[in-house]
């Protein structure tokens, strides 16, 4: 029966209404009354045509932005894991910067692993990017034998679950033109296969060895398993969502990154939109401010509408604007005008700023509607 109202309401509201109808037995008349009232309420709470939602959104972010503290680092949890927050982070999100200043992930684990700290620690060790210097106590150059000798840090190796064999294997794979072997006293010796190596090259080899990638997921510099709502979650510094999703222990439906482009790559544009919303909300909540979620939804929609993430910058969404004058008035006017003249572009003067420039009423609010009046003929007396 209520099918006829389906077109008049958004799906989510209609579905909710169906649920309510099931719980309450209404007569047909009552049901009609209910839907009439519902539709009326829905219609009256929509935004009026001609409301300048863009400017209102901008002002709704701009005003609280002035109150944000400039103390941009916030320590998340226990260790020295910090994240950029506050105004700089908000700018970063809305500008859609490719490189986030403090990328980090929140990795949830599957049910079998998320109750046990040791399992969480093991997975964390799998994720953490490990370089050779982290496993070494000392790097030294033996001038007499023309080789680099490395004393290992056994404790770190145990913690990161790396055996000598594993280490030797990865090292010999990644270090070309170098023979890698282990002495009896546990030191690792790196010797260039070329004869008569110069000291300078040996030094270079030493520096290169320090930065050699041993295991883990590249980009993840820190891991931190913490207990959150009765389960263990791994926080990371550095982000590489795509690689993390390859691990079978990870709960792919909940794990996320604060790097919007990572989310876009791993999960797609809808997820990126949600990530923008979540990240912006996080900043605003953390500062104890209150911005209506609809403003954030609007910005996120605007940024992702084209199918990729575009920032609110001259190279981002502003370049999508139809009007030449609107683009020119934002940034780099000469470039826009020259490009427009080369293409022979037309400006329909349909938006705000163009009309301010030519001093015409802007098509908003009182300037939007046209008035058609039916003039009565004067009655003949």
């Amino acid at each position, binding site marked *: 029966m209520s099918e006829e109202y389906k077109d008049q309401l958004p799906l989510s509201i209609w579905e909710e209404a169906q649920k309510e109808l099931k719980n309450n037995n209404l007569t047909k008349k009552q049901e009609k009354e209910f839907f009439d009232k519902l539709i009326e309420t829905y219609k009256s709470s929509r935004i009026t045509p001609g409301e300048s939602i863009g400017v209102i959104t901008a002002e709704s972010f701009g005003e609280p932005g002035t109150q944000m503290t400039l103390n941009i680092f916030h320590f998340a949890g226990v260790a020295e894991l910090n994240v950029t927050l506050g105004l700089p982070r908000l700018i970063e999100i809305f500008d859609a910067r490719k490189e986030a200043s403090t990328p980090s992930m929140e990795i949830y684990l599957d049910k079998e692993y998320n109750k046990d700290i040791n399992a969480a620690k093991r997975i964390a060790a799998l994720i953490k990017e490990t370089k050779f210097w982290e496993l070494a106590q000392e790097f030294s150059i033996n001038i007499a034998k023309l080789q680099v000798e490395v004393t290992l840090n056994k404790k770190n190796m145990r913690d990161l679950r790396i055996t000598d064999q594993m280490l030797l294997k990865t090292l010999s794979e990644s270090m070309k033109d170098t023979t890698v072997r282990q002495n009896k006293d546990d030191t690792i010796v790196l010797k260039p296969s070329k004869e008569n190596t110069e000291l300078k090259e040996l030094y270079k080899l030493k520096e290169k060895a320090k930065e050699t990638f041993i295991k883990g997921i590249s980009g993840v510099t820190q891991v931190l398993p913490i207990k959150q709502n009765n389960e263990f979650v791994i926080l990371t510094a550095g982000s590489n969502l795509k690689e993390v999703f390859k691990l079978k222990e990870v709960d792919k439906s909940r794990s996320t990154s604060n790097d919007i482009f990572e989310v876009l790559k791993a999960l797609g544009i809808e997820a990126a939109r949600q990530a923008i919303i979540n990240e912006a909300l996080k900043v605003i909540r953390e500062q104890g401010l209150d911005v209506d979620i609809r403003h954030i939804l609007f910005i996120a929609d605007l940024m992702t509408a084209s199918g990729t993430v575009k920032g609110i910058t001259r190279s981002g969404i502003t370049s999508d604007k139809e009007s030449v004058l609107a683009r020119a008035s934002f940034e780099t006017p000469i470039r826009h005008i020259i490009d427009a003249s080369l293409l022979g572009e037309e400006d329909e003067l349909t938006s705000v700023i163009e009309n301010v420039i030519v001093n015409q009423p802007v098509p908003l609010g009182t300037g*939007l509607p046209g008035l058609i009046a039916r003039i009565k003929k004067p009655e003949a007396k």
Partner: protein
Amino acid sequence: MTDVYLNEKFIGSVDNPENFVKKIREERRRARVPTIVNIYYNSKVNEVYIDYSNGRARRPLIVVEDGKSKLSEFHIAQLENNEMTWDDLVQQGLIEYLDAAEEENSYVALKEEELTPEHTHLEISPVTIFGLITSLVPYSNFGQSSRLNRGSKTQKQALGMYASNYLMRMDTDVSLLHYPQTPLVRSFMHDLSSYDKHPAGQNVTVAIMSYRGYNMSDSIIINKGSIQRGLARSTFFRPYSIEELRYSGGLVDEIGIPDKEVKGYKSEHDYRFLEEDGIVYPEASLREDDVVIGKTSPPRFLGELEEFSIAANVRRESSSAIRHGEQGIVDFITITENEEGNKLVRVRLRDQRIPEVGDKFASRHGQKGIIGAIIPEQDMPFTASGVKPDLIFSPHSLPSRMTISHLIEALAGKVASLSGRYINATSFNAEPQEKLRKELLELGFRENGTEVMYNPITGEEMKARIYIGNMYYLKLKHMVANKLHSRASGRIQLLTRQPIEGRARGGGLRLGEMEKDCLVAHGASLLLKERFDSDKSVIHIDEETGDIAIVDRHGRRRAQKSSSANIGDVEVSYAFKLLLDELTAFGIYPKIKLKSKYH
């Protein structure tokens, strides 16, 4: 091995830097190394810096050895008897000057009682951690440091006796306070800097209360009776000067009353105060646009004008007139010559400034505010003894700023005015509050400085006890008379036909980008258009080609490329027309397509 730098140049290295530095310091104290030398060992980078170059800020400190000040009672007695001078103290190594670098190596005690064996130096007096002006703030050790900063900043803006020879000076933009007073609550720096000779404020009675809502948000209420008795009046001086310039070809400017034929002649009325020599007479009362010094200059482009213009060889008017929105009485005139030997005339005008709503005042504690209301004396609340405050200060200015020194000054000022003595309020070394309170009690007042006050309108006793005392208040140089500005219509720029900028030229008030956004956000589209149409103009558009057309002097409409009379009139901003012209100028061909808005 530690590198040693002399005046930032590398000169060598030493093995034991600590010993080396210590040795040099000892030698300096024995005056075997010049006392202007400073040495600093930076243990982090392991380098020693020796410096005797010019331009380092240095300050004197008493040398301390083994937790004991080297300057003893004996030396002080010698100083008092003039048996010793400051230079002797420095030469004997009792006092030494440290620069910013060497200070990093020392551990300075603020007071002698605090000395421990680790200390290397002792402040001569705790006040010396402040500068000259900061130490003029009474009880500053009871206030918040950032407020102390502001307090010392506002003192520099106070009007007072800025120079004793002000009558003979031609300073721009200065004011002189009438009846300046020396503060009752003072620090020793007031005496040291002979503040009595150049005071910059007045002692007023301050009540801390809100009254009729006119002292909200840092504004203050002032008693009209006090103003009529001369409180915070000042004179504003403004010099006008003119020079008889020489031009090429033997042409010269001429100071005198311009002839009526002169190009740009104002009106006879404007020149009415000028005497035959073209200069106003002393004590003339001038208003806006009146000429102070009359002058004519030779025509600008002599050669060209001779050929074409009928009015060739006409001199230009170049007098100096009273600035827009100002007035004054001619106070002082000098006629002299400048370095190039040109005649130079300077006229100084004075203008009495009576405090009005909007003038800025401040106490010495960073508590500044603007007059919110001037209330007739009969409407000011009064105490049991009939005292009416000169000024009412809002209590809301206190909690968040924590300027306790402001409150203590009021209390101390009350004691000072009742007992007839100055109160020493030097930071760290002031008369203690307890003593002041006791004295106030003995004088027959409540010891906490509050008093019973009465409502002047109903005569009722006020329920709260009002804190009232005497404070030294400063009138600051920001007066509304110099800032007030409004405009309905006026001069426009030649290029854009938009209103010109700036108060001095009677410019418009800009409705900026963000203000515009507010109108957009409200959807007030037509208001926005009206606010921005100061440069509106009608342009003619050829509807066929989209070119700008013209109307010739016979009223005929003419288009560039088509002969059709299909030309529409469009109202746009002149700035947009200018944009189209500029685009045309660099080779872009803009066209305008017209469409009826009714279709």
